[in-house]
């Protein structure tokens, strides 16, 4: 297992992303920052905290569980659902989706479907800590913490303190996982 971002790297990346969000949207008016469960949730909370500090105004947020929208339900053992908590009205708003890793794009596809069922956002943007490539759908991120070239059989792990007890990004090869050292 190889560390590719330390906790402080990750903190700086989130801070930069927050500034890019403000710059792109000329402020934070009409923005809803929406984390995708599970790790997108605390990451969205941190972006909201930085955005509020930078702009000095409250920023709306939400959390989206995409378990009911997956296209691979048949291939998974059991999908555990979590709560979706969104502001009651998203019509006309700018949604910033937040996730830990952008890989095939299928999670984001599911999240876009879930959002469409909740209303008609004016704009949807995507912020991720790591973009590891290998897209299977025409989806890209607007804000990226780190572009990380990977092989398909490698495993990228983003850890966040609220869930995993520490911040940082690690990559591990296929052999490492066979030896059972995966966390």
């Amino acid at each position, binding site marked *: 297992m190889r560390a590719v971002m330390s906790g402080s790297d990750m903190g700086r990346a989130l801070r930069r992303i927050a500034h890019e969000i403000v710059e792109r949207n000329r402020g934070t008016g009409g923005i809803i920052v929406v984390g995708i469960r599970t790790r997108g949730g605390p990451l969205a909370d941190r972006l909201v905290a930085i955005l509020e500090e930078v702009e000095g105004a409250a920023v709306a947020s939400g959390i989206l*569980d995409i378990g009911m929208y997956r296209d691979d339900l048949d*291939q998974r*053992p059991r999908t555990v659902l979590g*709560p979706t908590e969104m502001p009651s009205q998203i019509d006309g708003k700018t949604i910033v989706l937040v996730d830990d890793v952008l890989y095939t794009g299928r999670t984001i596809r599911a999240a876009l479907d879930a959002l469409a*069922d*909740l209303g008609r956002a004016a704009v949807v943007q995507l912020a991720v800590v790591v973009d590891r490539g290998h897209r299977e759908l025409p989806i890209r991120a607007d804000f990226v913490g780190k572009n990380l070239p990977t092989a398909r059989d490698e495993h990228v792990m983003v850890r966040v303190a609220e869930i995993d007890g520490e911040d940082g990004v690690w990559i591990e090869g296929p052999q490492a996982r066979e030896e059972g050292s995966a966390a």
Partner: protein
Amino acid sequence: MKHLLTMEGVDRATLASLLDDADEFYEVMHRPIPKVPALRGKTVATMFFEPSTRTKLSFERAAKALSADTLSFSPGTSSLKKGESLKDTVLTVKAMGADLMVVRHTSTGAAWRVAEWTDLPVVNGGDGAHQHPTQALLDSLTLRQHFGSLDGLRIAIVGDIRHSRVARSDVFAFNTLGAEVTLVAPPTLLPPDLTGWPATASNSLDDVLTEVDAIYLLRVQAERGGASVFPSVAEYRERFGMTDARFNRLKPDTIVLHPGPMIRGIEIDGGVADDPRCKVLEQVTNGVAVRMAVLFQLLGGSKDA
């Protein structure tokens, strides 16, 4: 979990995961677009060999809200009238592409037989006087929503326990989730032997009235012989009915549940049925949510996992 056939022996973690998922589907039901694509391409067959309004509609509503297709079977208009066997009927519906069957039948164990014959996931939608597991789930969800947890709750189930698949399902679910259950009925409407029932029994509603957190009223079931075992409807109401007078003696936070259909004037007075502490309509809404959770768990995962 491959099937949902009974509440007997289902562990607490399984019940909790179904209720947790049901909470999420409850939220879906209250969205402007109350539909998710989770079971797109799946077909749910509702095989009701015994009359039902709410359970059948509720399963169909649940399947459609998950984007599954439904095949609906009713005995009145079917080839059963021409002498086709139960086995041939369900195999025919399987051959049409059903991925899951909901089975209601007057005979105990019918759903188990259908599961053997078809090798499909089967949900027991009520078998005779035996089991009705999704009713127990929706009742548990209603209690959990109101009280936060069933742990330590005292619940009285009142009425025709002997002929009731609802009571047989509820006692196991309520007990597993931590509640204390008292069965209240005249001796003729209690099961002859309470061995194996995780509950105590009483012959007097008035004795337990002021001590319980929830009262679960059962319907007097004429079609299962329930009317012939007590002298008159008036006497039943007098001793076991939730009259306005009894309702006023309950603790102020005690709630009343009923599986429906309610017979006003026998087991429940009209004033009680219309009171906000009577949760019948919440139970109906929760029925759709728990059935979504059951269908999602039985059809949403891979078969070999």
